[in-house]
C-alpha cells in the first residue's frame, strides 16, 4: 500500500503537479488584484460619474458579466497583445472578473446613504478624500463576503486554461493520464486516475476552503469589535 503511494506520488509527479498549481495560483493572484482595482474604479464610475462615462462603464460591466468567462479565455488567448500564454489568459480573467467586481462594488455603494457625501463635503473633504476615507472603507466592509466568493470563482475558473493548453494544474492532471507509461513505467489503472484527480481536487479545495474560512473569521472579528464598540 505505502509502496503503491510512493510510486504513484513520486517526487517527479508531485513536482509536476505542484508546478502546475503554481501557475494556477499566479494567474489567479494577478487576476484578483488587478480586477479588484479596476472593478472598484468601474463601480465608482458607474455610480457617481457624469452621464456618458456612467453609461460607458455600465456597457462594459453588462457585456462582460453576461458572457461566459471561457469565451474570453479563448478570445484573449488568440487576440490579446501580450507575449506569453499565461499572461494572455490572465487578461481574460481580468476583463471578466473586473466586471463582476464592479457590480459587487456598486451593490456596496448603493447601501451608503447619500447624506454622507454632503456631510463629508461640509467638513471640507475633497471628492477623492471622501471616497478614500469615508465611502470605500464602509463599502468594502459590507461586500467582503460577496467579493470572496468571486475570488474563489476566479481560482476555480483558472482551470479553463487547460482548454488552451496552458500547463496549469488541471491540464497537467489530464496530461499525466497520457504520459503515465513514460513516467511511471506501467499502464495506468482506474485507481491511479482517481487518486490523481483526487489530489488535484484536494489542492483546489484546500485553497478555496481556506479562503472561505478566513472570511468567516474576519466577519466574526468585525462583529465582535463593533459589538464591543457599542457597549
Amino acid at each position, binding site marked *: 500500500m505505502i509502496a503503491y503511494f510512493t510510486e504513484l506520488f513520486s517526487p517527479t509527479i508531485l513536482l509536476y503537479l505542484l508546478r502546475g498549481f503554481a501557475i494556477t495560483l499566479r494567474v489567479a493572484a494577478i487576476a484578483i488584484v488587478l480586477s479588484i482595482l479596476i472593478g472598484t474604479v468601474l463601480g465608482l464610475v458607474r455610480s457617481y460619474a457624469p452621464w456618458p462615462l456612467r453609461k460607458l462603464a455600465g456597457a462594459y460591466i453588462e457585456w462582460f*458579466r453576461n458572457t461566459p468567462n471561457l469565451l474570453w479565455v*479563448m478570445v484573449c488567448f*488568440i487576440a490579446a497583445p501580450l507575449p506569453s500564454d499565461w499572461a494572455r489568459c490572465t487578461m481574460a480573467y481580468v476583463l471578466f472578473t473586473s466586471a463582476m467586481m464592479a457590480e459587487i462594488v456598486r451593490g456596496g455603494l448603493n447601501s451608503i446613504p447619500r447624506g454622507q457625501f454632503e456631510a463629508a463635503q461640509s467638513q471640507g473633504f475633497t471628492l477623492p478624500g471622501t471616497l478614500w476615507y469615508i465611502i470605500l472603507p464602509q463599502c468594502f466592509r459590507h461586500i467582503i463576503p460577496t467579493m470572496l466568493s468571486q475570488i474563489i470563482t476566479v481560482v476555480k*475558473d483558472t482551470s479553463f486554461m487547460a482548454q488552451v493548453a496552458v500547463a496549469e494544474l488541471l491540464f497537467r492532471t489530464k496530461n499525466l493520464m497520457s504520459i503515465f507509461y513514460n513516467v511511471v513505467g506501467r499502464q495506468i489503472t482506474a485507481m491511479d486516475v482517481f487518486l490523481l484527480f483526487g489530489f488535484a481536487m484536494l489542492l*483546489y479545495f484546500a485553497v478555496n476552503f481556506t479562503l472561505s474560512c478566513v472570511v468567516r473569521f474576519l466577519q466574526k472579528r468585525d462583529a465582535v469589535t463593533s459589538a464591543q464598540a457599542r457597549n
Partner: protein
Amino acid sequence: MIEQIFTPWRWQNLFTEWPLLLRAFLTTLEAAVLALLLALILGVIFGLMSSSHHRLPRAVARVYVEFFQNTPLMIQLFFVFFALPYAGINLPSFTCGVLCVGVYTGAYISEVVRAGIGSIPRGQFEAAYSQGFTYLQTMTLIILPQTVKIILPPLVNQCVNLIKNTSVLAMIAGGDLMYVANNWATNGNASYGPAYLICGVLYFCLCFPLSTWARRYEEKLKRQDIRTPEEVLETEAMAS
C-alpha cells in the same frame, strides 16, 4: 481579430452556415434547461436538509455544498468524462455536461434555499406544528411558498451563472454554442472575430434580460425593506 470583424466575406461564410449555429444555440438552451431542473431539485432537497434540526442531514448537505463550491466545475467534468470510463462508466458528453453543471449549480441553489428558509420567522414553524401540520406539509405549504418571492433574485442570478457555465460543454465536444463557435473559428478560414462575436452576443441575449430583471427586482425588495437572502447569510455569519 478586430479587422476580421470588419471583413464582410467572413460574415457571409458564417451566415451561410446559420443552421449549424442555430442547432448549437438550441443545444445550449436544452442543456441549460435540463441542468436547471436538476439543480433546482438538488438545491431544494439539500437546502431543506441543511435547515433540518438533525445533525446528520445537515452534515451531508454541508459536505455537498463545500465540495462542489470549492472545486472547479472543470475538474468535476473532466473526472466524469475522462476518469469514470476507467471504472467502466461511459456517459455521452451532453449527459456529462448536464449532470455536472446541474450538480454544481445545485450546491449554490441549496445555499440560496437555506438562506430563504432562514429568513422566515421561527414563529411560523411553531404555529404550523401547533396546528398539526407535519414537517413536509409545513415546508411545502407554508414555508417554501413564502421564500419564493425573496429568493427569486439570487435564484435567477444562479440561473445566469448556469447558462454561462454550460459553455464548459465545449471542452468535451458537447456540441453547444461555445463548441461550434470554437470549431468555426479554427476551421480553414480561421474567422475568429465573427465566430466569437456572434457567440458572445447570443450568450448576452440569454443572460442580460435575466440578470437585469434580477437586479431590478432585488432593488424593489430593498425599497420595501424585505430582508434579502444575502443579508440573512451575512447576519448568520456574524452571529455564528
